[in-house]
């Protein structure tokens, strides 16, 4: 039995027939062709599927699409014109903070949330905020450096 879900993604309203147990992650990837958010563990542990829901980072693999009416979902694609998103993109490239890249969309969404809250976040704050984003290439050091650098450029 399908249910109609109302989902607002990157400021666009969608009405889609989904199964009641479909997650936001599967709807993003398989129905809306937004493949930035990645399916890693499907358990909320790895962070590769992180999106913003009403500006707060959450796991799209643990959100049911049919339970998100009235919420604004922002994916990595929705941050392409965002000032903090652009600063992060630039600093990640400059710092070489990407290896295989699988975790990076989720990492950027978490990074955007911490810099939005506090562009002057300390390295310790950044490490805490990023503790839920696993990078199996273990490129953490450059990721943290890139976020701190973007923060410094946003709030010199």
């Amino acid at each position: 039995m399908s249910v109609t879900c109302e989902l607002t993604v990157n400021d666009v309203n969608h009405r889609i027939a989904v199964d009641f147990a479909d997650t936001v992650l599967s709807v993003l990837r398989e129905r809306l062709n937004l493949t930035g958010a990645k399916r890693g563990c499907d358990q909320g542990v790895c962070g590769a599927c992180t999106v913003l829901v009403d500006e707060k980072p959450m796991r799209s693999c643990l959100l049911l699409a049919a339970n998100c009416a009235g919420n604004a979902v922002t994916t990595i694609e929705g941050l392409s014109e965002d000032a903090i998103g652009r600063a992060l993109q630039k600093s990640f490239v400059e710092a070489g903070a990407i290896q295989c890249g699988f975790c990076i969309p989720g990492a950027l969404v978490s990074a955007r949330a911490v810099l939005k809250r506090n562009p002057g976040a300390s390295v310790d704050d950044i490490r805490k905020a990023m503790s839920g984003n696993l990078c199996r290439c273990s490129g953490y050091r450059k990721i943290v450096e890139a976020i701190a650098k973007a923060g410094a450029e946003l709030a010199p």
Partner: protein
Amino acid sequence: MKTGVIHHPQNTEEALVLLAQDCEAKPIAGGASLVAMMNAGLVNPSALVSLKAIAEVGFHTRADGTLRVGAMTRHHQSAESEYLTGMRNCLRAAAGSIGNMPVRNMGTIGGSISLSDPGADYPAALVALRAQIELRKVGEIRTVPASEFFIDWYTTAREPDELVTGILLPAAHAGTGLYRKLARVSGDFAIVSIAGCLSEEGAVSVAIGGCGPGPVFSEEVNAILSTDIVSDNSAEQAGQGLAELADPVDDVRATADYRRLVIPRLLVQAMRELRAGRETLQ
């Protein structure tokens, strides 16, 4: 192909009616635990009752001083709450050590304790604090002491047609409280955790998490600790008592023997910190 329905009740009463009509229906709050279990194929509900519109959120101090925590309060709200001071700090610290920021933004205290993962952070804190769990069903409300709520692995005193609607914390809370977790990495479930509080009058209450189907708690051990809060020896001895009462298992995180070994050591450290916290207050 999965099939099922999701209901969207607008208040607690409507949710309770839906749960009473379908004993297979599962309530869903933040989804942080339930959807993970659904994704893993551990539960396959035929119906979900969304609690999204239910306004049981936040903290309210009653006339008698009891603090009521709404079941839909998110972990990040508890981790930052100005209400969770003194001995109640052990609940605040437990909330702050759950998973990571995205999970703390999603999960709720009512949802977490209803699914009752034995490695989760709230159970030990609620038992140490002598919290009461408020359960509602159509036409009935009851409270269960936290020490009797966590019955077995992933099993609580909640009936299928009941909802956890709130958590009640005792009025008296002057003192200090802490929560410490031994885990493989930040945000993981506990290998062993300890929740402890020390009242202004010197009464100690501790509970151990991650070492069996529910928190390990003993009034006799609390009495030993309260009689002599000063010496490491008495804490070590009390810790041995708790280790004997614990029923840990070997799993991917640690062996049962290791868990038993760690309990007294964590307790000695916790008592030192509680004493130091009390001296700061005096």
